């Protein structure tokens, strides 16, 4: 009897062999393993696809920055965007990833996994797909800075800084908040800090570094009149800037929904929140500009969409769609006021990077606490504020010092003659639009 019933089971189980030709017949256990494997494949897929989308944001940043600055600096902007990603990738491979996700005894810094040493040929490649997703994030933080420092920064000075932010400044803060996503464990995440996709970790870190850069550099020639009046320096190609914003919006779906690094149903709400916040940000920024200037201004509207995206980044996975609209709407208003504020206090940020990424990164992080679907509390808000403050202090101070050092060593700003002629010629010997008749503002 025993034998017979066993036989039956075996027949039932072994008969399935056709699917895996030549392999062992499947069992409940092998099936279960196979299911996990397929899920793993889906996780890899989604993480890689999201990383590709985030990589695409590099093109978006390049276009927004190019479009919002003058024709005579277009090549320079492009080179900065190409190189902060390229050198940054290598820096993050060699150093950054280890500092951010390596084993961290203190919670303050990672100490292993440099040069992708966590991967051995033939071993588990998860570290690789995780690395590429994190690498494009690191590059995002770096590239934010280039916008605020546009049109006057020495190329080699920029490269120096760019390596350091990707290799050190961003990863160390990252290890505090996100280290445990891999081998690390950060003090800030230990406190329950909520920053799902990086309003603070990526955007504020980039934004405050941008602020330091803009301050150390000073405003572009001609930005302020003799009497201190603000003189606009117009972006030279608004359609490119607009395309850049659409591309960033596309990429942000990967940025936020990809931060699951897993193919789960959570991506649905994250994507909806991302979209609604961006939409609300664009609309409210347009309305704000309409009220303030009498006409719906395109630069502000575009920045409003980005502000909404930055704002929802922290809380995209833990706030409701309705809250996402509110968060985006506030971001849209905030970005306009913030741009005007920085203009007024004579900090010249050609593309509004500080307002979009710094200020709205902070707002988004706070909002993730306030609108938490699971309820909020003083302590949640407190930890969010602590994270926001830590990011400001760390990024602004480190960057400020670094820019000062770079300035001493290789000089940070080009000469006035070079600035007047344009960085395309002075830094790269090139001309972005040789077939077009172009003017030079200022």
């Amino acid at each position, binding site marked *: 009897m025993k034998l017979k019933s066993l036989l039956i089971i075996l027949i039932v189980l072994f008969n399935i062999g056709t699917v895996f030709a030549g392999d062992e017949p499947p069992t409940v256990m092998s099936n279960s393993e196979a299911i996990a494997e397929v899920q793993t494949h889906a996780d890899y897929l989604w993480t890689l696809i999201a990383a590709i989308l985030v990589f695409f944001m590099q093109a978006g940043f390049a276009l927004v920055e190019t479009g919002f600055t003058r024709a005579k600096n277009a090549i320079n902007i492009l080179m900065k965007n190409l190189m902060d990603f390229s050198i940054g990738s290598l820096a993050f491979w060699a150093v950054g990833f280890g500092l951010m996700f390596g084993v961290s005894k203190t919670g303050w810094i990672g100490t292993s996994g440099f040069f992708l040493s966590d991967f051995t040929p033939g071993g588990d490649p998860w570290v690789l797909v995780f690395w590429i997703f994190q690498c494009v994030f690191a590059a995002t933080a770096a590239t934010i800075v280039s916008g605020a420092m546009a049109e006057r920064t020495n190329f080699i000075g920029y490269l120096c800084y760019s390596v350091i932010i990707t290799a050190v400044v961003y990863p160390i803060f990252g290890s505090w908040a996100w280290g445990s996503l891999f081998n690390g464990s950060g003090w800030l995440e230990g406190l329950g800090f909520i920053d799902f996709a990086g309003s603070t970790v990526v955007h504020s870190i980039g934004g405050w570094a941008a602020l330091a850069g803009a301050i150390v550099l000073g405003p572009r020639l001609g930005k302020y009149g003799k009497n201190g009046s603000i003189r*606009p320096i117009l*972006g030279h190609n608004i359609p490119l800037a607009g395309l850049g914003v659409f591309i960033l919006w596309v990429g942000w779906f990967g940025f936020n929904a990809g931060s699951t690094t897993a193919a789960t149903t959570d991506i649905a709400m994250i994507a909806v929140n991302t979209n609604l916040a961006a939409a609300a940000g664009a609309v409210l920024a347009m309305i704000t*500009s309409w009220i303030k*200037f*009498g006409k719906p*201004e395109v630069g*502000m509207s575009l920045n409003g969409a980005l502000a909404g995206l930055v704002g929802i980044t922290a809380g995209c996975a833990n706030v409701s769609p309705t809250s996402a609209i509110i968060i985006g709407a506030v971001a849209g208003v905030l970005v*306009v006021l913030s741009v005007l504020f920085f203009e007024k206090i004579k900090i010249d940020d050609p593309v*509004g990077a500080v307002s979009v990424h710094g200020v709205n990164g902070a707002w988004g992080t706070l909002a993730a606490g306030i609108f938490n679907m699971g309820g909020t509390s003083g302590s949640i808000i407190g930890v969010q504020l602590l994270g926001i403050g830590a990011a400001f202090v760390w990024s602004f101070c480190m960057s400020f010092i670094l820019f000062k050092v770079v300035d001493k060593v290789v000089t940070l700003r080009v000469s006035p003659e070079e600035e007047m002629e344009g960085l395309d010629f002075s830094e790269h010997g090139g001309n972005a639009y040789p077939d077009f008749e172009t003017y030079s503002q200022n």
Partner: protein
Amino acid sequence: MKKIEVIIKPFKLDEVKAALNEIGVAGMTVSEVKGFGRQKGHKEIYRGAEYEVDFIPKIKIELVIEASRADQVLEVISKNAKTGKIGDGKIFMLPVEDAIRIRTGERGKEAI
């Protein structure tokens, strides 16, 4: 020979050109210029800063004609470039001492 320099509103170019062709003046040289004058520019906004665009886009027509045709040409241009609104532009007449058609080497009246 006289050189006639005309500054007009851009959208009047076609009309002026057609009228000149009608009276047999077919050769002319045209360029885009920026005009400053009584007609005022407008205010634009860029990221919250308002600024005055003080120039007005204008078209400059240059044509060299026989002195004897000057009056007729001036009249035709005046008539066809006119809207009666501020900024219609100017006509200036300058003396020309010589002219050459490069293709043939013809000089003077023959050249134009």
